[in-house]
């Protein structure tokens, strides 16, 4: 049984100060460009207070709630993968000199980041990316360094969006593991669950009292209420086999007529991990940088073999994405690649909703 403590709203700055004094740069929700995004903060004043988000397929709007709460919204366009698996990475550099070429790997020691406000689905997404980058035959040591350097302060969701379906994917809305500390925003303060020895070291000096029975009950009812509010569902029963049995379904073509193959769904997805590597020479070809950047199965060039894309139309690209995410991910990594965060639904510029498409694809054709 984890240790539970409590602190008042007016003690929130103390908690933040403790994170910073322990050497962490704190990344947390802030408002930028009309959305809640994850960026570095200096004080709790940089965090949104009294905001929520309205989300629908292809639609996101910030709204004022009229209260002063800190976390009454769901996930936005960013995910933590932006920090753990940055969109642009320098891998190595080659430099030509009189004695020939020298090659130097770029080592990322990992910035000490404290991620504040990580939701349950996002913890699940981190675990999925850990499996991809750390648990196969090839370990991405830069990812490992970034992961090891981070401190995780999770938050239990109180107000899910209409695109959330973590309950179907069994990832949320309550945080179960994978955090150093997990917070629940109560009516007058925060319940704090300590999930690791690192978390314990962090909060011990603060001397926050143990939580009372009432505070634990209030936290439970907030999570129960959040669960009840989640209306979107995806039937995952035998989903791998059901989808793989429908590879020639006519509905793939129907989705392809709407899909723009624009890559947004894969960019915002917290588990999508594809990248490409290119060599970038200077004018004189005396210095060549090897750079890695996010790529997507929706780019025609992504499946180029001998100069021609293997998946040469949107139908096959959408099918690749959906069947990898929900079906062949099981074959590759022993679990689903979707955590039910709903980002791909919200941030698709034409509002394509994978839960609706899955339901249509699993219907038998007449």
């Amino acid at each position, binding site marked *: 049984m984890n240790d539970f403590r409590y602190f008042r709203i007016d003690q929130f700055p103390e908690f933040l100060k403790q994170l910073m004094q322990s050497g962490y740069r704190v990344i947390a929700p802030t408002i*930028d*460009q*009309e*959305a809640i*995004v994850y960026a570095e903060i200096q004080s709790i004043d940089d965090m949104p207070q009294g905001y929520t988000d309205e989300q629908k397929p*292809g*639609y*996101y*709007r910030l709204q004022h709630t009229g209260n002063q709460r800190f976390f009454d919204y769901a996930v936005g*366009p*960013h995910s933590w993968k*932006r920090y753990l698996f940055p*969109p*642009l990475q320098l891998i190595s550099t080659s430099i030509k000199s009189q004695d020939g070429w020298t090659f130097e790997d770029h080592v990322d020691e990992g910035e000490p980041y404290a991620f504040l406000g990580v939701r349950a689905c996002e913890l699940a997404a981190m675990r999925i990316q850990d499996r991809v980058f750390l648990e196969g035959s090839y370990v991405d040591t830069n990812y490992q360094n970034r992961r090891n350097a981070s401190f995780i302060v999770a938050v239990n969701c109180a107000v899910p969006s209409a695109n959330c379906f973590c309950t179907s994917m069994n990832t949320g809305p309550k945080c179960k593991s994978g955090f150093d500390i997990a917070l629940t925003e109560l009516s007058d303060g925060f319940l704090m669950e300590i999930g690791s020895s690192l978390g314990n070291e962090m909060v011990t000096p603060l001397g926050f009292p143990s939580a009372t029975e009432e505070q634990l009950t209030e936290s439970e009812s907030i999570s129960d209420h959040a669960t009840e509010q989640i209306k979107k569902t995806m039937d995952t029963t035998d989903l791998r086999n059901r989808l793989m049995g429908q590879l020639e379904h006519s509905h793939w073509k129907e989705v392809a*007529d*709407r*899909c*723009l*193959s*624009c*890559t*947004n769904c894969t*960019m*915002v997805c917290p588990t999508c991990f594809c990248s490409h590597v290119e060599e970038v*020479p200077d*004018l*004189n*070809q005396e210095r060549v940088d090897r750079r890695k*950047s*996010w790529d*997507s199965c929706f*780019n*025609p*060039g992504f499946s180029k073999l001998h100069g021609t894309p293997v998946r*040469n*139309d*949107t139908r096959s690209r959408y099918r690749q994405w959906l069947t990898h995410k929900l079906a062949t991910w099981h074959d590759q990594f022993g679990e689903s690649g979707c955590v039910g965060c709903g980002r791909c639904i*919200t*941030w*698709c*510029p*034409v*509002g394509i909703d994978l839960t609706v498409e899955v339901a249509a694809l699993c219907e038998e054709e007449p």
Partner: protein
Amino acid sequence: MPEKLRLGIFKFASCDGCQLSLLNAEEELLELAELVEFAHFPEASSRIESGPYDLVLIEGSISTPNDLDHIQKIRRQTDTLVTIGACATAGGIQALRNGANHDEFMKLVYPHPEFVQSLATSTPISNHVSVDFELRGCPVDTGQLLQIISDKLHHRKFSVPDHSVCRDCKLQNIVCVSVARGIPCLGPLTQAGCGAICPRFHRGCYGCFGPCHQTNTDGLTDWLIKDGHSSAELIPLFLNVNAEAPEFARTGAQLMRQDSAEGESHE
């Protein structure tokens, strides 16, 4: 030191903005001058040398009877010919006259149209001579321009990324203006290259780099119309600097037809 690459830059109907993109390279220009002989670049130097040229960059579209002849002469003196920008690659904004009443336009704009020698159409360079590579953009991107010159210098195959503007938004933390603000944006259909400048300043993409590979224009217009935008509002998205690019031309014409049908049904 290997021999310098002989570079020629020629201009047809255009605004000079793409050539300026090369001059904007400031820092790299000196380095470039070590590797390249600017044999014909009137925008930058009055020293003009005749061909042959190893690499020619063409800005602008074919829009006068004189152009028809001039482009053939250039091609004959050129090893590798690359078009730069939307005008040279897709006819430019001036291609809006294609299919419209050219004489009427002339009368509206010029007091003495009889002195103006102009073709009824503005067409891409590739309609007239063979082109080795087309660099998109309005204007072109300085980095891509330098890369093309460097590719030629070092005998590499020309290539630029062909993904959508959306990927560049996401890579740079730009929040989608379409989803978060309801602004119609051409980014999902447009080839990247500009670094998503317009969305960065909270505007929809204008499609300067033209349609990306296998673009689904109907998918976007169907959604936007269902979302409450009128056909009239969407026409300028497509009939803009890349109006002659086939996918944009087709969609623009379709929206024009829908718009006049909507107009009639209101009468």
